[in-house]
């Protein structure tokens, strides 16, 4: 038992430092400053992962994500074994589990990586309260994001930036990213030990998918195997490839980009198997080495900064994943259509490009970002006019790298529900696919039923003559569905809808399509000042203290407490009737 263990190594009179490190994300031993800090001065360490028993069944997480998580936990356990430690997987809810653990293990310290998401902050506040009640010291460090997000918000006058450009400008004025913490080694552990009971595996082992209630018969091997070991291997490969190509520009999209890459890192960043800061520094070092240039452009970190941006916009907004009551989201009259949604989610739209993407997503758990744009556009503002919240839920279930902030933010962006996005360009479910993959190999790979169609018709097989369909042994309407919408008609209608909505928002009275999207008041039209003074100046102006810079238009979110979109939006008609042209704006 623990008591015997402790008694053996420490005299009863000495205070024993028993620490618990709580893994949630940050499933790694490298760059884990909260873990490192809690080991310092501790006599015992127990790393726990808390598995909510109701989570598996009812929550919106599919088998791929569970498998990835379990593989991460196995990997952690393996790495901890090498340090004479183990991972403790505990079933239950944190608020129930921790008081029990504090008591049983005589805990003096609890550590975990900072979670910036609103739900996470709430949960952690509750745990901190329990900890202080039990006399447990809490150590929290930022390591899931490059920066302390609150500092970015502070630099922006206390508000989250609403455009990516603004965010980039703020980033360029932040202090340098903190270096990743040293990896936990036996040396780091020093005298800190983990009491492991004989029945550890019975009580605390990482469960299997079957134990969680999943059917695993026929499950293909994971295209994206989880775990820190895999993540670090991929990082090396990723950097090797970049060094070899010696080109840090945005890669041109081709058919191959659609397929899962052995150097892809996004799921590992999401679960925290890979530290974003490690990635950042390695990328920087490589750039400096190859380009013999000391200052890499911001675009080098594109992937990381987008992630950071969405975390920043979400952290203070508990309704970030909803349309209603979300101050940054445009209220759009999306259609409620469960039947159409199911066709999209299950890859039965009748558009091979869309269906192949959704099939890859369901089978593998990852799709290229342009593929995401294509299916998101199709579901929302492009064709089906279904709410982005529905799409977000499907991605939450299937997509390995979709965490709350990034998933919700991306969906709002792609459906033009926020972030002052122009909505005019619509990804054609036939043309876009055809231009990306002219040969149609991607379609053939994920929709084998269409394998025998010639490239000419594989993106719009309903246009193929009957003879071609028969030869391909796939008759549209029988073996493969007919297209569920008429794209031209749908996009015509939808561009009208979006125009209607945005004209009301910006009270725009002209004829142009581009000017309907309101200019972001803290974005200076199309861009933003880049000197620190300018940024501070704008921040002050936004706070309404500077009479020389009145708000650029009515409803600036930083002047009123209520959201820009709700004040001028659909609900607030004031009996006005808008007719979208100069004559008819009746007040």
């Amino acid at each position: 038992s623990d008591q015997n263990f402790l008694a053996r190594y420490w005299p009863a009179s000495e205070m024993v430092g028993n620490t618990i490190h709580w893994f949630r994300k940050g499933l790694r031993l490298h760059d884990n400053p909260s873990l490192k800090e809690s080991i310092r001065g501790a006599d015992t360490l127990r790393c726990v992962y808390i598995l909510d028993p109701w989570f598996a069944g009812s929550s919106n997480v599919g088998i791929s994500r569970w498998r990835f998580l379990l593989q991460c936990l196995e990997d952690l356990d393996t790495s901890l074994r090498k340090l004479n430690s183990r991972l403790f997987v505990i079933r239950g809810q944190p608020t129930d589990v921790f008081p029990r653990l504090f008591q049983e293990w005589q805990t003096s310290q609890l550590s975990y990586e900072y979670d910036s998401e609103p739900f996470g902050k709430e949960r952690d506040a509750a745990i901190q309260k329990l900890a202080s009640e039990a006399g447990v010291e809490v150590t929290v460090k930022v390591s899931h994001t490059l920066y302390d997000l609150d500092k970015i918000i502070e630099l922006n006058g206390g508000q989250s930036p609403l455009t990516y450009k603004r965010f980039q400008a703020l980033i360029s004025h932040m202090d340098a990213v903190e270096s990743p913490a040293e990896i936990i080694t036996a040396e780091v552990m020093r005298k800190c030990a983990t009491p492991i009971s004989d029945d550890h595996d019975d009580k605390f082992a990482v469960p299997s998918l079957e134990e969680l209630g999943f059917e695993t018969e026929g499950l293909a091997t994971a295209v994206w195997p989880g775990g820190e070991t895999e993540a670090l291997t991929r990082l090396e490969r990723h950097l090797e490839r970049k060094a070899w190509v010696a080109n840090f520009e945005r890669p041109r999209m081709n058919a191959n980009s659609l397929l899962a890459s052995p150097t892809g890192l996004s799921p590992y960043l999401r679960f925290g198997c890979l530290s974003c800061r490690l990635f950042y520094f390695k990328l920087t070092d490589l750039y400096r080495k190859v380009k013999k240039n000391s200052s890499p452009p911001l675009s080098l970190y594109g992937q990381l900064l987008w992630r950071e941006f969405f975390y920043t916009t979400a952290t203070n907004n508990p309704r970030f994943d909803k349309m209603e009551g979300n101050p940054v989201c445009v209220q759009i009259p999306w259609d409620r259509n469960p039947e159409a949604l199911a066709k999209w989610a299950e890859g039965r739209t009748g558009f091979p490009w869309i269906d192949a993407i959704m099939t890859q997503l369901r089978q593998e758990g990852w799709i290229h970002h342009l593929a995401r744009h294509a299916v998101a556009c199709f579901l929302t503002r492009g064709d089906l006019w279904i709410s982005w919240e529905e799409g977000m839920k499907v991605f939450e279930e299937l997509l390995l790298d979709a965490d709350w902030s990034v998933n919700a933010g991306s969906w709002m962006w792609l459906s033009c529900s926020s972030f002052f996005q122009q909505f005019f360009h619509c990804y054609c479910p036939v043309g876009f696919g055809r231009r990306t993959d002219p040969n149609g190999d991607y379609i053939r790979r994920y929709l084998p039923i269409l394998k025998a169609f010639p490239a000419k018709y594989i993106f719009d097989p309903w246009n193929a003559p009957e003879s071609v369909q028969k030869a391909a042994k796939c008759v549209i309407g029988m073996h493969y569905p007919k297209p569920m919408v008429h794209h031209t008609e749908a996009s015509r209608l939808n561009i009208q809808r979006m125009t209607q909505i945005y004209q009301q928002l910006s009270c725009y009275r002209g004829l142009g399509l581009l000017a309907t999207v309101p200019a972001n008041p803290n974005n200076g039209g199309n861009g933003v000042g880049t000197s620190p003074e300018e940024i501070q100046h704008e921040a002050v102006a936004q706070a309404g203290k500077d009479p020389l810079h009145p708000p650029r238009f009515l409803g600036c979110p930083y002047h009123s407490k209520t959201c820009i979109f709700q004040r001028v939006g659909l609900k607030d008609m004031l009996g006005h009737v808008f007719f979208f042209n100069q004559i008819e704006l009746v007040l």
Partner: protein
Amino acid sequence: MKKYEDACSSSSEGPTESCKKVRKLQPNLCEFGFDWALLPQEILLNIFQFLPLLDRAYASQVCRGWNQAFHMPELWRCFEFELNQPASSYLKATHPELIKQIIKRHSNHLQYVSFKVDSSTESAEAACDILSQLVNCSLKTLGLISTARPSFMELPKSHFISALTVVFVNSKSLSSLKIDDTPVDDPSLKVLVANNSDTLRMLKMSSCPHVSPAGILCVADQCHGLRELALNYHLLSDELLLALSSEKHVHLEHLRIDVVSENPGQHFHTIRKSSWDAMLRHSPKFNLVMYFFLYEDEFGPFFREEVPITHLYFGRSVSKDVLGRVGVHCPRLVELVVCANGLRPLDEELIRIAKRCTQLSAIGLGECEVSCSAFVEFVKMCGRRLSQLSIMEEVLIPDHKYNLDEIHWEVSKHLGRVWFPDMMPTW
């Protein structure tokens, strides 16, 4: 919602007992000794006009005076009926009780009315139901807006037409009419014209498949005050343009045309240059807005001769060739939006547009490709007249002269303001 019922059912004949009592016991004095109940109706009206409907309804329950103010005709000139069903929409609908009260007490006050319906047939039917009851209305503005799928099209045509003609016949002073995506037909347009030809100024009827060119010609012939017209290309004819340019006709201000392909390989008729010339002579400042939703190979009849387009939108992929023709034949172009083009750079075409379309002030490019140097050249040629420059980041192809990080400075320099391309998350 009870508050609407209370607000609407309060009697206006003499104070109630409890109201009298309250008055005696507690005059509504503020610290300056002013009785709020004595606030003049005109001021109340002014204030009420700023309140959203719900807040107004709450206010109307404060006392009889405010309740009377709530029902003043001036507050009921404009109304937007939001008709949604929970099964098909996430948004709330106008309360049925409120609708009843409006029809009962305020239908003769209504002047500017719109209906927003979701994709369910039920909502469209509810709209028709209300329309048929607007017998005492003298509407100036009527808008039928489908916010998702066009549910008006799913109604039995006769049902819709009879509801609509109630308004046409009774209003007699319709000025603005928005009936896109509805089953309106030629006979109903005749009824519209017979009753409202003197007052009609705006007619928006894109995608009304039951109307024929003759039907719309009738409108143009009779409604000489028409300033704004929106319709589909199949309704456009030389005769229509000539009718709109006749001496009796006022200057046309906006003409919007949707060119929509229903099936690949569809054939489109041409409009003679002389008809466009006549339009321009008659209405030199008119705006011609055209939205094209065609397959690439259907553009044959278009942009072969000069056409006075001011706002041009390509909703599907459009070829380099067509964009080249746009540069040559659209000297009045003010805004150009290209949804997609393909993977061959539009360098020459853009430069030609910069040169020849001297009024161009807004451009948007989606899935296209332009080399960075050509793009900088384009911006340099247009200069500061470009107030809207919306280019997706993927459009710009770095070349020997500029890479992506440098281009925004160059472009910003020529525009005279800070500019960045539009971005999409690369997560």
